[in-house]
């Protein structure tokens, strides 16, 4: 199947320098260098630290990706890169690098949307995506419900968080509980020993009035505040904080809202494929709850394996490969890195 497009993908929208190589929907390499260790002590990603790390990691990550895939740059059919959304300075390192690799190797360039790439990565695990599909992307920076009519160009936003992203809520609650950053994995682990119904935390934007204006939107800042109040109240009485129970009850509240709204979106739009992506899709409870609830309505759930859910270059390569196969025109060498790229812009060729 060597007639399938061989595409290189570069991702630098946040703290991961990711370079992936994909042929069609087959993953050949997924090299990732992360600067997370440098950010952890600040309790969040520091943009300038991330940007510096991208520059340092670029050539080495490229070498590793090409070596793993066993290909040369001259073999690829296109170079794809995350053009946005993300941290402006971080994105720019990847975009400039991608242009340089494309120019030097004489290959077409595709500037693509990070969110669509999170959707496209699933094709590497489960094959071509049935369309239309509903995609729920939940990460440290995003919580969005998208209607994917056509992964090559028609993606419509149904809703998004109006305050904190789901992953951000995990990170903040972890900090309240004295767990390390990023908070998703330690909360997931702690919750296994806790009782998810021991504390009734609020489910944001699920009241009857909210469902009129914010049916597919999310809000997690009230939940975070509720957890903080609950923990403070406990500390005031001098009792120990039951970390496992708080973690499990918080996680239950997040997963409940996410899965309810995702399935509601599928049913409202008459769509029977639900894709979940982004770092929070690694959450074990979310995976189980979405799968179980969706099954009751005959909705098929696709969730890529955790390694593919967090930021990486393979997802960008996967979207690039899809765009090449769909004969979408490439981007020009003067494309910007756009930190606020709208979800409706799947690739920058859309603008030509």
């Amino acid at each position, binding site marked *: 199947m060597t007639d399938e497009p061989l595409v290189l993908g570069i991702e630098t*929208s946040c703290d991961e320098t990711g370079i992936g190589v994909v042929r069609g929907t087959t993953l050949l390499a997924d090299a990732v260098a992360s600067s997370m260790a440098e*950010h952890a002590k600040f*309790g*969040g*990603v*520091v*943009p*300038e*630290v991330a*940007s*510096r790390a*991208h*520059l340092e990691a*670029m*050539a080495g990550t*490229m*070498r590793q990706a090409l070596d793993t895939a066993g290909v040369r740059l001259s073999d690829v059919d296109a170079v794809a890169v995350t053009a*946005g*959304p*993300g*941290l*402006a*300075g971080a994105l*720019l*390192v990847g*975009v*400039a*690098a*991608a*242009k*340089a*690799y494309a*120019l*030097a*190797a004489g290959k077409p360039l595709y500037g693509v949307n*990070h969110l669509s790439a999170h959707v496209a990565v699933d094709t590497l695990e489960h094959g071509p995506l049935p369309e239309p599909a509903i995609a729920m992307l939940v990460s*440290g*920076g*995003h*919580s*969005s419900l998208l209607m994917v009519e056509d992964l090559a160009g028609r993606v419509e*936003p149904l809703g*998004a*968080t*109006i*305050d*904190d*992203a789901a992953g*951000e809520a995990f990170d903040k609650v972890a900090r309240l509980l004295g767990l390390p950053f990023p908070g998703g994995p330690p909360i997931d682990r702690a919750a296994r020993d806790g009782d998810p119904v021991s504390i009734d935390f609020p489910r944001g934007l699920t009241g009857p009035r909210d469902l009129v204006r914010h049916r597919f939107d999310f809000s997690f800042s009230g939940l975070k505040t509720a957890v903080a109040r609950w923990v403070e109240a406990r500390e005031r009485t001098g009792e120990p904080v039951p970390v496992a129970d708080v973690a499990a009850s918080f996680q239950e509240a997040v997963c409940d809202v996410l899965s309810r709204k995702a399935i509601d979106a599928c049913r409202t739009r008459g769509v029977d494929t639900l894709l979940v992506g982004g770092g929070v899709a690694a959450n074990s409870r979310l995976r189980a709850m979405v799968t179980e609830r969706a099954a009751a309505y005959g909705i098929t759930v696709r969730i890529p394996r955790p390694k593919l859910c967090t930021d990486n270059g393979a997802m960008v390569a996967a979207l690039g490969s899809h765009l090449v196969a769909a004969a979408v025109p490439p981007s*020009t*060498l*003067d*494309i910007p*890195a756009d*930190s*606020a*790229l*709208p*979800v*409706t812009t799947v690739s920058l060729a859309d603008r030509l």
Partner: protein
Amino acid sequence: MLVLGVDTATAAVTAVLAEVDADGVRELASAVTVDGRAHGERLAPSVAEVLTRAGRTVGELSAVVAGTGPGPFTGLRVGLVTATAMAQALGVPTYGVCSLDALGAAAGPGRVLVATDARRREVYWARYVDGVRTDGPAVAKPADVHVDAERAVGDGAGKYAEVLGVRIVPEPRYPVGAVLVGLAAERILAGAPGEVLEPRYLRRPDVTPAAPAATRPAAAGTPR
């Protein structure tokens, strides 16, 4: 040998194509765009443009020379990652040159101060005698620069002329592409091993973590 030079350490986005041999450096084409916010957009098209204008192809390049700053971080990285990636793809060496040297060496004989705009009301500066750097590079408030020169060049010198109190020569205002390549000519001709291009940031990063999702550009850009 055909050599590409790039510099993005100032508001000028510079690409130059030059022929380097025992007789010296001959500029074939150069493209300079002065726009402090367009480094990422302009540099790659400028590289393509100088190649086209000179009627040469990218595969003919023997080396890439880059200005390593000091300069505002975001723009500076564009030049360095572009040079690094192109050279890696082509399998040719990269050589780094201090961007201020590409002004100092172009400023003629005598004692010269080079100062470029470092934003935040500061300048990147270095001192030269007959084109050779004798002090710097460093970053400082204009009032704190020990001038000790007959004249000054660079956009930072022009911007803070009154504070510096030295005669300002309007040109060169930005690093000169052919001069940049010339400063690496010896290494290029000697076939010296390629260098990892290390940015001269001169300042530590501001360590404020990214704003929460609602104010982060990514989230703010998500349509409702």
